[in-house]
């Protein structure tokens, strides 16, 4: 309960002002395509040189929480996921915006972000020592099985046909092999200098999601706009809250999946949203509505990616190991003031530690209030004529891809992938499984190789990958996931053949 004692510090005038700046600035940065939470926090670090340790961390903490939520804005309105965490939000969120329900989608996303986020920070406050042990429990063999679990999701994710889903997943996994292999040092498929560092995930996200959409808009021309004007429906905040409360399953699964997966160093943040989305879909009574603008999709994805924020800092704050790129940047923010995370932080600088954690809690609330306030206005973006919209999205895509690491190479990669995806979409493939392959490929590969190296030096591969309770549990979940997909596929087939027979 120590954290309550330090609540006063958050509301000191200077601190609260910084909290406001961090939250609002973070939302804007997060909504800008290409600026991931990691980059947004890195950009703010130089400003904290001049501030006291506590104030600097308030700014960083607030910015971290709100950039994650801000990423939903561009995902919903423009179909550009700002970071891997927002991929699942585009699936239903953007369809809702196109139907004129952008305000509703944004309100739901901010509300569920706040619920998930606050839950995550409470986990950080109360269960840190337990969670730290959990974060360490995942070794290479467990991460390998976790990635395989992700692969089993690929087939069923946002695709009419399982085969096409798996095929796009394979394309994604192949793309992921491009570049220098960090473990063995081999060069793979580097047929152009801009591919030396592999395919940057943010540039790929922008290309795969935004560019096909831009091309489709251009292809339509500008003469048929009369038919396309979207009525943006007003949606009251009260109704959004009622909607959220009426869907406890999506909110619960999203929040819990996000908190558990967010904790695993190096993996969590990227796949928490997608895994939560897939789980909610499997348990929902309205499965067929997912991918067609179902509010539950937005709720699950956004509660998961904000629930991840708190637990993702556990390895950093307790063990001094940054578990994610953003945590690494925050580590720099602490070190610059001579504060070492770990026992030193909580024993000798409790004011810094708890004020930082409290600021994330208050930041969630502020982020939600501010987000709800602008949601109605922001949703009008859908009314912009398509020809203008296409140009704006294209410009933002180029800007976003370039700004990731100030490199034209990433812009070329984005353009090529976008063009490829445009044609693939015509043949019924979709971007989400492809991106999942791109994310999971390297996780599965590097952990398998690393695990094999350890296993070869110790007790052999089969003992290493199949031994231990955690390995067995993960394998059981993988098998259950496959069995479920096969069963659903068979059932739907029997269904269709029966209908065909009757017709």
């Amino acid at each position: 309960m120590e954290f309550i004692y330090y609540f006063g510090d958050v509301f000191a005038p200077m601190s609260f002002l910084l909290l406001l700046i961090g939250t609002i600035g973070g939302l804007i940065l997060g909504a800008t395509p290409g600026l991931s939470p990691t980059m947004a926090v890195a950009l703010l670090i130089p400003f904290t040189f001049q501030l006291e340790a506590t104030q600097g961390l308030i700014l960083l903490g607030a910015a971290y929480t709100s950039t994650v939520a801000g990423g939903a804005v561009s995902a919903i309105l423009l179909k550009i996921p700002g970071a891997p965490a927002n991929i699942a939000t585009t699936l239903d969120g953007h369809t809702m915006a196109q139907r004129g329900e952008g305000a509703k989608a944004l309100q739901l996303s901010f509300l569920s972000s706040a619920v998930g986020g606050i839950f995550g920070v409470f986990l950080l406050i109360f269960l840190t020592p337990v969670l730290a042990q959990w974060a360490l429990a995942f070794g290479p063999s467990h991460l390998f099985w976790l990635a395989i679990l992700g692969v089993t999701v690929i087939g069923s994710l946002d695709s009419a046909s399982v085969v096409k889903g798996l095929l796009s997943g394979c394309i994604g996994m192949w793309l992921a092999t491009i570049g220098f292999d960090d473990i063995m040092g081999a060069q793979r498929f580097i047929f152009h200098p801009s591919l030396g560092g592999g395919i940057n995930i943010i540039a790929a996200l922008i290309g795969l999601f935004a560019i096909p959409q831009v091309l489709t808009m251009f292809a339509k021309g500008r003469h048929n706009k009369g038919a396309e004007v979207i009525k943006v429906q007003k949606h009251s905040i009260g109704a959004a809250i009622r909607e959220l409360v009426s869907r406890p399953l999506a909110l619960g699964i999203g929040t819990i999946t996000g908190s558990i997966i967010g904790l695993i160093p190096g993996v969590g943040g990227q796949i928490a949203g997608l895994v939560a989305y897939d789980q909610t879909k499997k348990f929902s009574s309205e499965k067929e509505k997912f991918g067609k603008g179902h509010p539950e999709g937005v709720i699950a994805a956004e509660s998961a990616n904000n629930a991840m924020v708190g637990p993702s800092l556990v390895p950093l704050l307790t063990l001094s190991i940054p578990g994610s790129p953003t945590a690494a940047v925050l580590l720099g923010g602490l070190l610059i003031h001579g504060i070492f995370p770990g026992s030193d932080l909580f024993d000798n600088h409790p004011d810094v530690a708890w004020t930082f954690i409290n600021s994330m809690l208050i930041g969630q609330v502020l982020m939600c209030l501010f987000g709800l306030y602008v949601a109605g206005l922001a949703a009008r973006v859908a009314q912009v004529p398509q020809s203008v919209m296409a140009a704006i999205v294209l410009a933002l895509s180029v800007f976003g891809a370039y700004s990731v690491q100030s490199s034209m190479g990433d812009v070329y990669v984005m353009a090529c992938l976008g063009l490829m995806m445009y044609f693939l979409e015509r043949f019924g493939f979709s971007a989400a499984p492809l991106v999942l392959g791109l994310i999971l490929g390297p996780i599965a590969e590097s952990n398998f190789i690393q695990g094999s190296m350890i296993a070869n030096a110790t007790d052999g591969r089969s003992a290493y990958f199949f031994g231990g309770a955690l390995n067995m549990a993960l394998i059981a979940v993988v098998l259950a996931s496959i069995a479920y997909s096969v069963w659903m596929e068979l059932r739907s087939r029997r269904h269709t053949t029966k209908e065909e027979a009757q017709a």
Partner: protein
Amino acid sequence: MKQLIAGAALALMSLTGTAMAEDYPDRPVMMMVSYGAGGATDFQARIVTMTAGNEDALGMPIAIINKPGAGGRVGWNWFATQADNDGYTLAAYNVPHFIAQSIKGGVSYSTDSFEPIANWGADPAVFVVAKDSPFNSMADVVAYATENPGKLTFSGAGLFVGHHIAALQIEKASGVKMAYIPTKGGGAAAMKAVIAGEVLGGVNNLSDAFRAREAGNVKILGVADLERSAFLPDVPTMMEQGLDVDNSSVNFRGVMVPKGTPQEVIDRLAATVPEMFANGRVAKKMKAGGSPMHIMTREEVKEMWAQRQATLEELLQGL
């Protein structure tokens, strides 16, 4: 945002004609870091350049841009082949990383592609084990490896980086086979593997290991340097423990420019930059972050590069 503004300013300035070397620098200078934001090199580069705008330093700010990827190869490839050599584009180097990579091949740079300016830091590699490990000295480690050849697993951040060099030297000096496990995700991932008990030991940066020891997670058994570190006066060097491991794996960080940069500009930088590093504010911030400083002039760095080139060529032979 800052980088973009700086970039825009640079683009605008270059249109108005090239400046004379006497006025150098008359616009903000860019410094490329070939590792991601938040990493140790990025973090230190931001601290040591924060006083660049002062009148007694360059009088112009230095903006950091990150070009991470492939263990630094992406950034250095870009710097060797595409960066302007007008003195407005600097880069941070990491020795032995870039030298080892150039010896191994597959990159478009070598020590001849760059001109060193000055060195700001030296972060030795250390050998760490988990806090409940039975090993208490390097002798224990070597004894275990002798009894179980090839079974002593120890982690480090990738291949052809300081950690790998230290690992090779330890193996060579002790004459036994060990299992070096390179991790993806840098020193942090390698440290996590040690703390979680996935491996029996690990090579890591002194600065990160010092922090992990403060947090009560690891024991540090030896420093791969010629002298003990001021941060860890109680930890003996490898040499003191009878292992013939010199300072070849020490991670030197400093500033360089591409080959072909005007000599006057190089001279101006070589005279100013070491003094900029010696600034009291810089030293205070670096000490607070647990980052060991080691300032070297251009001549000293040149000598150090040549030395490393020779040692690494020998060490990496036949690998």
